[in-house]
């Protein structure tokens, strides 16, 4: 019996070898995404995009003649699992770099693992804590909330609106936004007249909105990810609130318009440029990357490439550039990543440095408005 098995194995191995060209071994890249669980709206497009980019690179002959091999694991949005899988990537699969995780919690949990193992990590989550203070091996592609907040406040200042009500979700995305909204208010001469939160699973925000109504703000800023903001949009419409409503970049996909229906009309939000790629002027540096990404995604998955998939596209492309310039060792990749300047991606134009591992400026965001179930640029 044993003999039979080993013979079978040997012949199988021989067969495989004869079919595969005797090229250099592939460069192993790890990926951790929350493909299942509550954060799957991030993880799924991220995984799809990463796989798509790797396939495209390999079809075009790989990086410097070497193929890339992407090893993806699903964290389920669970920090404990993320740590186990990061260990697996580093110790068993011996990857040279990791992209992901999808959520700030997962990222914060795996940072000690990659720092110890000295493997570069390009996170796709937005939390400001990830790159502040700077950690030697950790980079990120998702825009900081700081930039999104600044973009909204700038617009309000331009329109001479100073009293705002904020309504944020009680998870890591919302609490990080709330911190930034409060911290930057003074700088823009904004006064927060009402500060409320709602739970990620809440299905009715009428009480909070009623309270906000009585505070008479000039604008309401809501910070959350679907479905909460869509509920808030509907509730606001039911209450007949005539106050301008701003959302965060956490809902910048067509999904939000689907969920909120007619209630989405007139809502504004800061977004990565991927939503409005076709509206951008030709002079925009990112236009080429954006259109390529959207077309690719449409061909591969018959769906619209969004902002979240863009984080993974940026991470993969940054990595590709770093391998081209710095070789295939973790240290070489890290150093080349840190030296990246003016890379026009989906999330913005990245320039990393020793002091800045987030790499974006507030130009990464444009302000968009929902008009007739589609996006338009706010002038």
């Amino acid at each position: 019996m044993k003999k039979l098995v080993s013979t079978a194995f040997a012949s199988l191995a021989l067969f495989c070898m004869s079919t595969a060209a005797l090229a250099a071994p592939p460069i192993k890249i790890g990926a951790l995404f929350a493909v299942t669980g509550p954060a799957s709206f991030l993880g799924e497009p991220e995984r799809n995009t990463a796989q798509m980019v790797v396939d495209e690179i390999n079809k075009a002959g790989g990086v410097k003649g070497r193929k890339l091999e992407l090893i993806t694991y699903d964290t389920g949005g669970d920090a404990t699992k993320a740590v186990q899988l990061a260990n697996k990537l580093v110790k068993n699969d011996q990857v040279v770099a990791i992209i992901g995780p999808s959520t700030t919690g997962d990222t914060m949990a795996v940072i000690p693992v990659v720092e110890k193992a000295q493997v570069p990590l390009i996170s796709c989550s937005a939390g400001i804590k990830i790159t502040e203070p700077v950690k030697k091996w950790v980079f990120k592609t998702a825009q900081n909330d700081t930039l999104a907040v600044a973009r909204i406040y700038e617009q309000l200042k331009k329109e001479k609106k100073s009293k705002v009500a904020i309504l944020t979700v009680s998870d890591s995305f919302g609490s990080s936004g709330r911190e930034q909204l409060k911290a930057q208010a003074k700088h823009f001469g904004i006064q927060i007249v009402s500060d409320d939160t709602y739970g990620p699973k809440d299905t009715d925000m009428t009480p909070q909105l009623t309270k906000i109504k009585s505070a008479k703000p000039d604008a309401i800023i809501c910070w959350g990810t679907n479905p909460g903001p869509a509920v808030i949009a509907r509730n606001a419409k039911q209450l007949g609130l005539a106050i301008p409503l701003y959302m965060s970049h956490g809902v910048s996909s067509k999904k939000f318009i689907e969920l909120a229906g007619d209630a989405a009309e007139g809502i504004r939000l800061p977004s990565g440029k991927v939503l409005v790629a076709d509206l951008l002027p030709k002079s925009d540096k990112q236009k080429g990357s954006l259109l390529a990404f959207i077309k690719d995604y449409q061909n591969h998955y018959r769906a619209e490439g969004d902002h979240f998939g863009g984080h993974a596209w940026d991470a993969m492309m940054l990595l590709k550039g770093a391998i081209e310039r710095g070789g295939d060792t973790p240290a070489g990749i890290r150093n080349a990543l840190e030296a990246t300047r003016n890379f026009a991606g989906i999330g913005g134009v990245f320039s990393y440095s020793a002091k800045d591992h987030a790499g974006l400026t507030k130009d990464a965001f444009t302000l968009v408005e929902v008009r007739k179930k589609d996006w338009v640029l706010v002038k």
Partner: protein
Amino acid sequence: MRSDRIKFLAFALVVLLLPLPLSGGYLTNVLIFVGINGVLALGLNLLLGYAGQISLGQAAFFGLGAYGSGVLTTQFGFNPWVAMVVVALCVALFAFALGFPVLRLKGHYLAMATLGVGVIANIAFNETVDLTGGPSGLSGIPNLAIGTLTFDSDLKNYYLVWCFALGMILLSLNLVNSRFGRALRAIHDSEVAARVMGVNARLMKVQVFTLSAVMSAIMGSLYCHVMTFISPTSFGFSFSVEILTMVVIGGLGSVYGSILGALLLTLLPEMLRTFQDYDIIVYGLLLVTMTIYMPGGLVEGIPALFRLIMPTKKGSEVGNA
């Protein structure tokens, strides 16, 4: 009694030697969590398997331990060991006080009440932002250390966690084979009958509830020092259910069953990765099949399976599997 001691020593030996063939691979890291989950399951098993009292809030005590240690060490500069003891004592007091009103309830009502405790604890972790960092989590928790030995690698943490786990397994074994354990089983079978025999059922239930809470809290402390980062999502209702599943799959009323259940539920997702997108479906099917065909859990199921296979295949290759 003698065979029990030999069984435990054999188990301890396996635990101590297990990391050697793994040579520091990532499985060592997974086994740390098997140790932690195993003790959580064991604590619940004492409560549910022996005393027959269900709890859907075990993650709350685990979380209290983790957050207690995390907050005391990062915000108040406590020594981690001192913090661990302080937190364990606080959780003991809390569980003891909570046990009296909650354990008066029976069946579904008890399940609901403990579920409520779990939800309240999770909300507390989320909302006390200044202390716990709220939903973004708490980072910068130090590793445990004894003198100059810092527990900062998987292998060191493995031995640390499993030393605690072995201690608690030994404690549980002694407990269930004592007069106290027999009284618990009597309460499980019929509380009225036990009371007639002179068992103080009310106090005993609270005592075992407290014990399981403290075991969970100590594991929580260890967890936070191993991970050095914690966030509220790890201590939610779903984790309480996962612990319950470990107990049921492993075997109700069996000390080693709890560890077996934790081992299976922690390693199974790893083994099912080959199925990629379908792993969750396969996982669910396996659990359902096991519950149907092994109602006594793995502890009874595996020997039964063995007996099924053995007589037909005597002397074949089963032995070296």
